[in-house]
């Protein structure tokens, strides 16, 4: 889980062009990290590539924070 969390935070920082130290579990993608709608799509795509998973877009776009993203991705990776 910690490895996944670290990789999620790294992907978020790179995609949204923010400092990784500011990417914490509580960070909300839109309100706190400034993601717009195209960056949200880019994040989904980046997660898919990073973890080699296929994410349901509707569910993925419903994920609002970094912590939620970690929780969302973890079981997909375990599969």
């Amino acid at each position, binding site marked *: 889980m910690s490895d996944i969390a670290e990789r999620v935070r790294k992907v978020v920082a790179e995609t949204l062009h923010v400092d990784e130290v500011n990417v914490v579990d509580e960070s909300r993608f839109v309100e706190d990290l400034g993601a717009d709608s195209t960056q949200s799509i*880019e994040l989904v795509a*980046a997660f898919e590539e990073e973890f080699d998973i296929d994410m349901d877009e*509707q569910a993925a776009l419903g994920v609002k924070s970094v912590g939620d993203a970690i929780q969302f991705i973890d079981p997909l990776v375990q599969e």
Partner: protein
Amino acid sequence: MVPDREYRSLTPGELQVMRSQGCRAGEDQWDRIRVAEGFDAQRMQNVLFSGRVRIGAHTRSGDQVRAPSGMENAHVVDCTVGNDVRIANVAVRIANYHIADGSCVEDVGLIEAGPDARFGNGVEVEALNEGGGREVVLFNELCAQTAYLMCLYRHRPVFIEKLMALVSTAASQAHGVPGTIGPNALVRSTREMIDVCVGRGAVIQGASSLGNGTILSNDDAPTTVGVDVQAHDFIIAEGTSVTDGAMLAKCFVGQGCRIGRQFSAESSLFFANCEAFHGEAVSVFAGPYTVTHHKSTLLIAGLHSFYNAGSGTNFSNHRYKLGPVHEGKLLRGTKTGSFSYLMWPCRVGAFSVVLGKHTRVFDTQRFPFSAVEADAAGRCTVVPGIMLATVGTVRDGAKWPTRDRRRGDTKRDRITFDVFSPYTVGWMIRGRDVLDHAASTTDRCRTAVVMEGAEIKRVLLKRGAKYYRRAIGMYLTEQIVEHVESAMARGAASPRDAVVPSPRAVFDESWMDVGGQLMPRRRLDEFCGAVEQGHFKDVAACRAALDEIHACYLDDQWLWVKSTYESLFDVDLAGSHDDYFCQIADTLLETKRDFLNLVLLDAEKEFDNQARIGFGSNGSESSACADFEAVRGRCDDNEFVREIQRQIAALEERVDHFKSVVTR
């Protein structure tokens, strides 16, 4: 109007009455005034007659709204005046006009038609390329399709030569005739109108200066030209309003348009249902449903349709080299966001949204439904297919047909409203292939690829292809279900019988958007060939041929859908079992439900916390929430959201019904 033979000379009694009421004419001129039965000399006051003047009957009395027919305080020169016409307070003169029954001309300056008047017909408009080379010749029956071909088909010189000959003949019919003010038209408080024809029922009120033009109008679709309008070298079509200080120079304004609030346009063409306020257009080919509402918007040297220009949109066609020679194309359905800038030449794929200041050349036509943004350096970055499942795209598709303001039997522009069609889906298929190829061949160490000047982030290549794949599947399966459903309702015995294409259908993998009309490329090539070979004797025959192509749209579309589906999925629909059609319906259910759910997700953003910023009087969350709900309502109650939810429910029922029908 009264037949020529039924006019007579004035009687001595009529002459005496008119003279006593201040009417004047040269001694040899009184004989040139001829009147119809029912003429009432009492209604002639202080009129100076020159040349040959014919006057109709006066039966209409005044009421609280309308003054009685007759003439007062005017200089009338070489005019034929119909029955129950009112001409009053003409400061200079009205000369060489046919003023038809029931019309009214009052409080005007000069109205005059010269012997060489053409009434806007024959004016050459430098559309799309300000530097010329794509001139569109105006004539009264100009439609978006003919204009498009005149403008864009310069690579076929014989076609252009033949088409121009037909158009010139049509335009010349307006030459050498008097000006007309049509039946029941009103021309009031207009300072100057020279060489302008006014159609039936038109209202010209308060215009400043009109010259060399035609204002087409009819009972079903009266046209309005309003206060302070200046228009020269123009044709305005039926049911249109040009008002509030608009300025037109060398322009065609098609049916059902709205132009006003000081909009200025030069060398531009506007086709059906365009709206243009406040801003400026130069050398624009505004296909149907081009909309620009805001100040500081300059549309120049562009081709677009179903287009919405955000405030401050600005195009640039001049790089200070060989002059203003650059041009750009926004394929149908494009939007430009506030203060977006495009430095031509560029081409933007259909139904895309353009944001930012683009200072580099790019071409994204292979990527419809995309976000086309500029980075800080003005380079184009594309997110392919992201606009597919959005509220905007769905609303556009629904709203355009309901906003067709054209009335009456004659609708000159042929318009294909479909958002998803062989044209847009064809582009998606090409885009998907390009993206799939790039995704499989681009090294993971690269962050982006650049295609035709547009940058796409590598991680978005697969995602874009996925979006297109889903939309292609949704369109094809929906068309198949719809076609089979409809054919079986009409009596087809099985889905296999239902899929047989019409013998008149024409297939071409590639489709064209000809000024808002979609058609297989082959049909267009055949049409151009027929023009080149002189098969059409006049523009009416060309029009009939384009109408025929338009009438074949559904047949052509079905053949394309069937062929494309069979090719993509390697099946023969006519040889498929009933269960296969049920599988198609299940696929439709799955893909369209996903699609509509994504649209709902997009709609929900309009109600999320970010959307509430600025609401509330004291900044507290509770007041923001209450204020927002009072003004914007709740997501669950929103009519658009409920409509999408209804569509999802209806889709499930439809698929169940379809499966029961095909397996019956």
